[in-house]
């Protein structure tokens, strides 16, 4: 079922490209063999055809990866997203240790020594390498 749905999603993306994305987000040029819209259009048509083919013949789904809890994954994604936003607003040095600490805790680490290492390792090493050694600025 998932395989067929993914086929439909691919075909839908092809339609979205043809109907909106390509006309609105590419320039219309009236000359030349390969115009700005030519390759994107070809890709969109290919996606539409391949997506429909996948819906009809879903085929094998492939080997499952490591088991992931969707809710947990969503939580991790939100935390990382918030961390990146905070980094762009408040800078790397105040935010990176907090983000690292949160992620270490989310991973289930409860040993103080390891938490301390997780909090300090990457931010301090990054600061040393980028700021001190390479003399370049951090976010």
């Amino acid at each position: 079922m998932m395989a067929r749905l993914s086929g439909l999603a691919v075909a839908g993306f092809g339609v979205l490209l043809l109907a909106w994305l390509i006309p609105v987000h590419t320039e219309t040029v009236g000359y030349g063999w390969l115009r700005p819209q030519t390759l994107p259009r070809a890709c969109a048509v290919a996606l539409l055809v391949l997506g429909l083919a996948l819906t009809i013949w879903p085929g094998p789904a492939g080997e499952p990866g490591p088991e992931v809890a969707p809710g947990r994954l969503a939580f991790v994604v939100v935390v990382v997203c918030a961390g990146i936003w905070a980094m762009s607003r408040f800078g790397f040095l105040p935010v990176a240790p907090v983000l690292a600490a949160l992620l270490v805790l989310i991973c289930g680490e409860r040993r103080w020594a390891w938490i301390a290492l997780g909090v300090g390792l990457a931010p301090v090493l990054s600061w040393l390498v980028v700021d001190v050694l390479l003399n370049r600025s951090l976010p």
Partner: protein
Amino acid sequence: MPDLATILAGFGDAFTLLNLAYVLFGVVIGQFVGAVPGIGPVMAMAIAIPFTFALDPLVAISFLVGINKGGLFGGAIPSILINTPGTPDAAATALDGHPLAASGKPGKATRMALYASVTGDTFSDLVLIFLSAPIAILALRMGPVEVCALMLFAFSILAGLIGPSLLRGLVAAVLGVLCATVGLDPEHGTPRFYFGWFELYDGPSLVAVAIGMLAVAEILRRMAAVTRDSQPGAIRVQGDGDDRLSLAEYLSCRFVMLRGAVIGTILGAVPGLGSTAAAYMSYAATRQGDDGGVPFGKGNIKGIAATESANSAVVGANLIPLLGIGIPGSISAALLISAFKIHGIQPGPLLFENQARLIYGLFGAMLMANLTNLIVGQASLRLWVFAIRAPTSVIFPSALVFCIVGVYLSTGGMFGVALMFIAALVSLAMSACGFPVIVFIIAFFLGEGFERSLSQTLVILNGSSGALLGHPIALVLLAMAIGLAIWLGRGGRGQPG
């Protein structure tokens, strides 16, 4: 063909103290990340690429090659000691490696893996050194029409061989090419799909996309799966008495290693066929010629020699299509492309004309990395037992912070970091739906060149398909691409790489 002075100068550049130090550093990192299940050399290379920006191109690429080579052997260590492959390539090594270690000979098993890995790797490096220049000369005689057909042929191989089905592979390839159309188009110079973000005028950053899709996606997935380290206890390496590997035992595996190296080299030279397939194929071939000694699967030393020589031989051979025709044969080769591009070098056959000294420097560094791999592996086997038990709850968050810093450095702003995060989400969605991410990335890397050669092809052919008859090589390549797609679509697939 480069002259002898250039070749010697290139090798001379490789054998400097600074280069040796970075190769050594790379091999140590590679063996460490290979030994920690779940990380692997690809993720380590992806994270390391932006940090090489400040280095000399040869030093930077040598460092990355060191990580890759160290990681391939490192992956065998947890395979043997805890029956959990550190990298997918080492899965076959566990078949005989773990039983041998469990029978009280972990030192013999890990050393056989190390020697076989270095043997196979050196063999394929030599093939690369002797073959890539002649292939590049042939490639330089090809025009845009032939290059365009060659890329279509490469897409059909990659789509067909990687991932669960040809259809899914083709979708991933088309998405990759579509993603490469973001930015200025090559013929008219007009912007496409930039949504008001001027940072997208040059297209999405290769480094941000590669790190996002390969490293960050995997880190997010692992963090969502990890609860607490629960690695089984590793077998301790003693390395004395019967646990040693004798010269006679090593020599008894010479034909097995040679066969493994040949299989790995051939499979590595074909884009899309990975080292996992090579290891299993070599193991199957060795098992067929069972000489009645220790049964396979019960700790036969030839089983380890077969798999490790084959999977390591893929590394050098993967660079044959990259350096010869500019098409990456694997994800690590694709990552090397982004390293080349960071330093302003365009991979492909022209490298032998414009950057011959660098290329022969790279070859020298590869040979040096093999020797370093041997020495570091020999000296630090006992140390990597601790790496196996390193807490992933600390490693993955730290790796994520390094990814953010690396992409910020490479792209020069937080836009690249945001792009990396979006690429990670796309990668997670693609993996969940069974679309091969590796095909997407390679197609994305090749997309820009493909559009340029397609544009030139259409101009040369003046839009007439009949004019293709004047390009027999392109016709043969197109026929092979179509034939391969039909054959693979009907189920004529081997083991995915």
